[in-house]
């Protein structure tokens, strides 16, 4: 089957801009989350997961990591780490839930909330530069071949950060497979791959296995 519109592969590269906000207590972290830019929330969640994709246990986002290693607040860290970025299509929603979890913890634990952490949390922003690649797929076979050869930046752009761009609860790959090739089951299975317990390479491997099955290989 041939799509009406091809899948156009692109990648995104980032530089990190150092922000103005910083936090040495949980209360300051809460304040920073309330006031920092969307680009900062993105940097410390979506983008951070991509930078650390090879850690298949113990890492979810920068806020949870700081609560764990610098503030020694295991329960809070667990809650912050439990936020799944796949559930969010806007930074406002994600910020709201991060804020709620921190606010509730600080309300219930006022003494801990004001205690100085071992290291400062520095809010930073991701500055994105999108780069179109001269690579497109019209069929599932071409799509498979392209998935084999693209880099981590491309996988991250289309599979992880695409939700924020599309404002849809799916990723670019699944969106195209479903819309253009009518492969809804394959699209769903690809969307269900756990980005927290897989590396970008193992996500690629799982995708290729699923596509292989679809192609009867």
């Amino acid at each position, binding site marked *: 089957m041939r799509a009406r519109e091809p899948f156009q592969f692109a990648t995104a590269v980032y530089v990190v801009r150092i922000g103005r906000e910083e936090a040495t207590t949980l209360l300051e972290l809460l304040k920073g989350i309330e006031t920092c830019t969307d680009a900062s929330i993105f940097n410390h969640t979506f983008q951070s997961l991509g930078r650390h994709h090879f850690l298949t246990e113990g890492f979810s986002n920068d806020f949870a990591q700081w609560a764990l290693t610098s503030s020694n607040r295991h329960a809070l860290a667990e809650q912050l780490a439990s936020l799944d970025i796949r559930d969010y299509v806007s930074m406002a929603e994600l910020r709201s839930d991060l804020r709620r979890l921190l606010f509730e913890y600080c309300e219930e634990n006022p003494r801990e909330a004001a205690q100085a952490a071992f290291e400062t949390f520095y809010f930073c922003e991701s500055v994105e530069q999108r780069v179109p690649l001269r690579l497109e797929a019209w069929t599932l076979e071409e799509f498979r071949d392209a998935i084999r050869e693209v880099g981590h930046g*491309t996988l991250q752009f289309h599979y992880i950060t695409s939700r924020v761009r599309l404002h849809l609860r799916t990723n670019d790959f699944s969106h195209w497979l479903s819309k253009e090739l009518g492969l809804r089951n394959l699209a769903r299975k690809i969307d269900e791959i756990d980005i927290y317990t897989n590396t970008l390479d193992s996500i690629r491997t799982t995708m290729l296995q699923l596509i292989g099955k679809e192609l009867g290989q």
Partner: protein
Amino acid sequence: MSETQVQTEARVSTLDDYAGVVGTAEIAELRALAAPLKGRSVQMVNSTSVGGGVAEMLIRVVPLIQELDLNIRWDVITGGDEFFAITKAFHNALHGGSYDMPDESFQTFLAYTEQNRARMQFDCDFTIIHDPQPAALIEARTNRSGHWVWRCHIDLSQPNRRVWEFLQPYVNRYDVAIFSSPAFARRLPLPQYLFYPSIDPLSEKNRELEPECVSRVLERFHIDPDRPILTQVSRFDRLKDPLGVLRAYRLVKRYFDCQLVLAGGSASDDPEGGAVLAEIQEAAGRDPDVHLLNLPPWSALEINALQRASTIIIQKSLREGFGLTVTEGLWKKKPVVASAVGGIPTQVIHKCTGLLAYSVEGTAYQIRYLLSNPNIAARLAEWGHEHVRENFLITSNVRRYLTLFLHLLR
């Protein structure tokens, strides 16, 4: 070509050579990123062409950016012993130490800056000035056509006020500043970016070595390959706390029959190395298991072999820029125990890619823990290697520069 312009080595690795390490896709993405920048001119300026992390990085980055069809050159400022004594004092003071030089030293610094300004040309689309030594060259900016970037590789979080108040007016005139960690940045009236430094996986210091080569180096330095080897590689500099490493080793030695290797050298802009080495020699006494190796700048192969032979890599710095020797250790799949200072926590994510320590005793404890738990050490080392591949290789550094250039042109 000016007399201060650096010629990078004749045989350098090409972009395609890196495909085996980072994959062909990453290289293709670099080429796509660079395409809109074809023909743009870039000038890198620093204070030494030999020794130290900045020079090592530039030696590799410059040819790669050139291969991507940008017109790049690398200039090194010149100065006598007097100038480099002042810049070394600046360096220590900006790391938080005292500044005991007379007021005239600032004028001397500016006089050498003026000599360099007169000798060099500044006509590029992007001028990247590395570190404080050439920072005042911003005086050479004559129009707004090119973008001026100050790349600060050192920790400016607690600078000596006298030195910083002298330098800051110059820094404020740049378009953007780049730091190796957000913790190093200052409140400045210009955008500040985070660039991690990088290592070259294909360089003599980091490439794969045959086991025989590693064995030969150990034999040459009389190091026993059959007992644990704890290694710190860094310049002989008090900020690297070599005496603290020695004390940590002695605490570990009570429980493990290990050896300590302190391998270093000195850069052409560091006049203090000899005195620090003498202090360590005196403290080490006649312990045959302490190996103090004062290596010349051309010892990349030896450093590589020593790191690969090590059981654990230590970096117990009191202050640190980024800590490229940590990066090198992680890349070689070695468990790392390091101080939580400067850029080290960015590399050593505690209990994920290595172990952090905050004291001599803590350093000794973490070393003992890893020696007792080799499986955990191996897992940390594996993830540490991936962390470097993803974030701290030279190709990532090239990507960041290209991305920043594109962003500045928006």
